[in-house]
């Protein structure tokens, strides 16, 4: 029993470290990707390829002066970024990183916890995350921050709906809300063709659902083209205008953690998680297979993170009314249509 606990704690620490590490290197990757997309080279002075840049940035943020505005609510001002960071990190608990490892006959789950309502849990935690922004923006006692916070929360509410509706269609198909279940179901044969083993990914059944999901994920992560809460051109810095030092660091950093987690969600909900097509044909030892699966999962995650950045440096930001129109008048009806289509499809193929 104790050994189970130690293993779980170890896994938690590893997942924590990986989330933070990936987020740290996403900041570097963001700068590199943006540079490359703009025919530049990007940071390359701290270590080769700028490998040490995230550390340098972190150290710099730590040594910056800490400013709390005189009229700010001190408690809430500090609570805001902490809450945002905590919720960003909490989501990774239900993500299945790979098949269970075989430790000499005992199976060890590569998932911190398998809640049977995993998808719902992620949604719940993510929607608490907006309180981090809201509280921070309100506590700053600054109109730009408040505007940013308002935008963030209304955007969250609008897109959370469409996102939830797009997931409903997926849950109708899988019949389970456990992420482990959903990923495990995607290991089968695509459209029942025995050759396409390990390709039974939901993206082939739910392309429209995925499209809605990814658009909403961009909005939930406050990424371009939906980065209105921090929109530099209009709101100075949005909800984190008044923040400095590591509290600003937490906000910026949590955005990358969020990006990592939503990439992981997209990969596991729609792109088969740790499943690799045709892997079983190679007849590898079981644990090697697990390892390859984990690697494949991370490859998918990294691709989605890259996609986030690729989009950011390609298209401009939406106008606020366009954002709302897209959310309420386009995505939500589309998501409902998707549910109907899925229902019909299920009846027809039964």
């Amino acid at each position, binding site marked *: 029993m104790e050994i189970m606990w130690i293993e779980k704690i170890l896994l938690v620490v590893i997942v924590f470290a990986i989330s933070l590490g990936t987020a740290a290197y996403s900041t570097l990757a963001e700068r590199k990707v943006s540079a490359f997309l703009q025919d*530049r080279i990007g940071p390359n002075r701290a270590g080769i390829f700028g490998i040490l840049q995230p550390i340098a940035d972190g150290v710099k943020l730590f040594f910056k002066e800490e400013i709390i505005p005189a009229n700010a609510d001190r408690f809430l001002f500090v609570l805001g970024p902490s809450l945002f960071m905590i919720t960003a990190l909490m989501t990774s608990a239900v993500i299945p990183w790979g098949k269970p490892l075989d430790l000499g006959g005992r199976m060890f789950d590569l998932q911190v916890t398998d809640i049977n309502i995993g998808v719902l849990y992620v949604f719940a935690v993510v929607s608490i995350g907006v309180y981090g922004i809201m509280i921070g923006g309100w506590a700053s006692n600054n109109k730009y921050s408040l505007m940013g916070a308002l935008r963030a929360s209304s955007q969250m509410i609008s897109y959370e709906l469409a996102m939830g509706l797009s997931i409903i269609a997926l849950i109708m198909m899988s019949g389970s809300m456990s992420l482990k279940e959903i990923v495990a179901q995607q290991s089968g044969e695509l459209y029942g063709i025995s050759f396409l083993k390990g390709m039974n990914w939901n993206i082939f059944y739910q392309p429209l659902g995925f499209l809605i999901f990814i658009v909403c994920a961009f909005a939930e992560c406050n990424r371009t083209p939906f980065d209105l809460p921090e929109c530099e051109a209009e709101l100075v810095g949005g909800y984190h205008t008044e923040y400095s030092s590591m509290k600003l660091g937490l906000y910026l950093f949590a955005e990358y953690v969020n990006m990592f987690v939503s990439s992981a969600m997209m990969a596991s909900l729609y792109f088969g998680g740790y499943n690799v097509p045709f892997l079983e044909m190679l007849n590898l030892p079981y644990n090697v297979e697990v390892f390859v699966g984990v690697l494949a999962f991370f490859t998918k995650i990294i691709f989605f993170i890259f996609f986030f950045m*690729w989009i950011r440096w390609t298209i401009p930001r939406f106008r606020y009314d366009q954002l709302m129109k897209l959310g309420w008048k386009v995505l939500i009806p589309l998501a409902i249509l998707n549910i109907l289509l899925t229902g019909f499809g299920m009846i027809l193929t039964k």
Partner: protein
Amino acid sequence: MSVLSLTNRKKVLQKRKLTFAESIYLPAIFSGLMITIRHFFRRKSTVQYPEVKKPFSKVFRGRHILKRDEQGRENCTACGLCAVACPAEAITIVAAERKKGEEHLYREEKYAAVYEINMLRCIFCGLCEEACPKDAIYLTEETAPASYSRKDFIFGKDKLVQPLGTSAHPKTFKPYVKDNKPYQYKNPVNTKI
């Protein structure tokens, strides 16, 4: 319409309703993504500055040098033509007469005891170079360095006169062409500017 137009390339744009393909944004976003990804693999145009320096144009006009002749004597005779030619009035000269025994220092009987150029006034037009009858002043390929106080920008003879023992300056100073031919570019890369 009888509106006068300089060129007839003017186009009147009218706002029209978006087509369906445009209104769902996705095709446009996709083609945008394709454009940016092409740039991702393109050769980068960054110049790694301290290690790599972009060469200046052959006719670049930088900070000045007061030349010496082959025997190490100063060319300048303090005639003041450069100061007259200078549109920015950046040059100040105080003339002095050459004493006996100073022939190895100054080529002419009269020389500039003080020769100052205010680098904050100078517009690097090169008119002083053109005005000089004695081949004394030249604009080099070196930029005037930054400084903290105004008085450091007044370059006296200590900074302007060519160091003793150097002939044509090896690296920074422009080769010395004294005919009126325009400079020939060896590899015409950036001639469009």
